[in-house]
């Protein structure tokens, strides 16, 4: 498929209550690489196999959660077009100037019906993935901890999923890959891709708006997921559930928490999406196995613990 418009999840700005343990968690355990720290004290991180300067920004605050997540679009022309389309749709857009996040071009910020702040941007400094662009090695040496490959997606909790669906598919050009529906046709969960991944962003219905469920990072194999779980126990990291299998997306996964209570996921192995296929539908009474395929029961923590 040809990629145009929105390319991929570009970054997430995550609030942490204490910076030092957060940096230890994301760098030493998850394996992200610190690339920058700005005058406000925000810490910029990237996963090794990303080419842009950062994908996670940590900001110290008195409560945890997600400030915003941003998607990279193909060009400034695409950014301008999408901004115009959002305004025509009725979304209020704010332009954040280039450099507000260092090494990032100007961003277009808008609030989606579930209450979350989403941003689009076209330009970010390229730093490469550490192995170069000519006759590269398969991976760089000296990686730490779980050696996460990339920031993959966020799962967000909030209301008005039908309105989110309209915005993401009809304005931003995403495809719906999977959904969970109630018997009367209501949406309990929606999974969207802007590429050919099983999900680039996902939502679960929740009465309180603008809640953060998790930021997810890709690993290379099931063995690496198990090794990640070993690292969690070696360092007394709070594990939520796993290693296990998702029904939705078929991902092999483990959930855990950063020191401020923000949930992280490391996972491997979903499927390849193409836009000519039918979305997958899960019935609400199968939600247990849809979320955790082996447990086959509703998990109160998965559904109730958010920041």
């Amino acid at each position, binding site marked *: 498929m040809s990629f145009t418009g929105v390319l991929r999840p570009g970054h997430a700005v995550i609030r942490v*209550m*204490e910076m030092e343990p957060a940096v230890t968690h994301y760098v030493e355990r998850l394996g992200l690489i610190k690339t920058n720290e700005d005058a406000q004290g925000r810490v910029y991180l990237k996963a090794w196999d990303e080419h842009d300067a950062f994908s996670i920004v940590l900001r110290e605050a*008195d*409560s*945890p*959660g997600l400030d915003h997540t941003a998607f990279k679009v193909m060009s400034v022309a695409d950014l301008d077009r999408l901004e115009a389309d959002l305004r025509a749709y009725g979304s209020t857009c704010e332009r954040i100037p280039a450099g507000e996040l260092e090494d990032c071009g100007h961003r277009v910020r808008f609030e989606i019906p579930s209450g979350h702040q989403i941003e689009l941007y076209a330009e970010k400094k390229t730093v490469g993935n550490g192995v170069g662009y000519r006759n590269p090695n398969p991976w760089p040496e000296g990686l730490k901890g779980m050696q996460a490959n990339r920031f993959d997606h966020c799962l967000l909790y909030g209301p008005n999923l039908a309105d989110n669906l309209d915005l993401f598919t009809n304005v931003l050009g995403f495809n719906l890959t999977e959904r969970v529906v109630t018997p009367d046709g209501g949406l*309990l969960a929606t999974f969207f891709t802007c590429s050919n991944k099983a999900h680039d962003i996902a939502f679960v*219905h*929740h*009465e*309180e708006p603008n809640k953060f469920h998790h930021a997810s990072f890709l690993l290379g194999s099931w063995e690496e997921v198990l090794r990640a779980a070993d690292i969690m126990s070696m360092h007394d990291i*709070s594990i*939520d559930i796993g290693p296990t299998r998702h029904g939705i997306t078929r991902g092999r996964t483990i959930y855990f*928490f*950063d*020191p*401020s*209570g*923000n*949930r992280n996921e490391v996972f491997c192995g979903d499927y390849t999406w193409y836009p000519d296929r039918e979305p997958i539908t899960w019935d*609400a*009474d*199968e*939600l*247990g*196995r849809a979320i955790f395929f082996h*447990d*086959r*029961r*509703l998990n*109160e*923590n998965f*559904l*109730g*613990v*958010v*920041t």
Partner: protein
Amino acid sequence: MSDYAITLEASGETFTCRDGQNVLAAMERLGRRGIPVGCRGGGCGVCKVQVLGQAGYRTLKMSRAQVSVAEEAQGICLACKLIPESDLLLRPLGVLQSRLAGLSPGRPR
């Protein structure tokens, strides 16, 4: 080194918390129940409790979105960030809500 006795109001559950350990970790390590367990990082608010009566304790950093200054003054805190300095009587306040109430619980194992 001192051990402190932690008692949960209503259930009467009692367990021991080692000096310097947080109350939630002490409960979990002993396989006890009574306080809902969430993120264990002071962020989600699921393990909210109120310390009753005169008691010695300190708390580590907790989310202001979960425990206000006024609540903190009333002895309300998160058990995962609560370090006893005396025996404690606690009232669990946290409610772990699935906001998807009314769904069938899925197939049994």
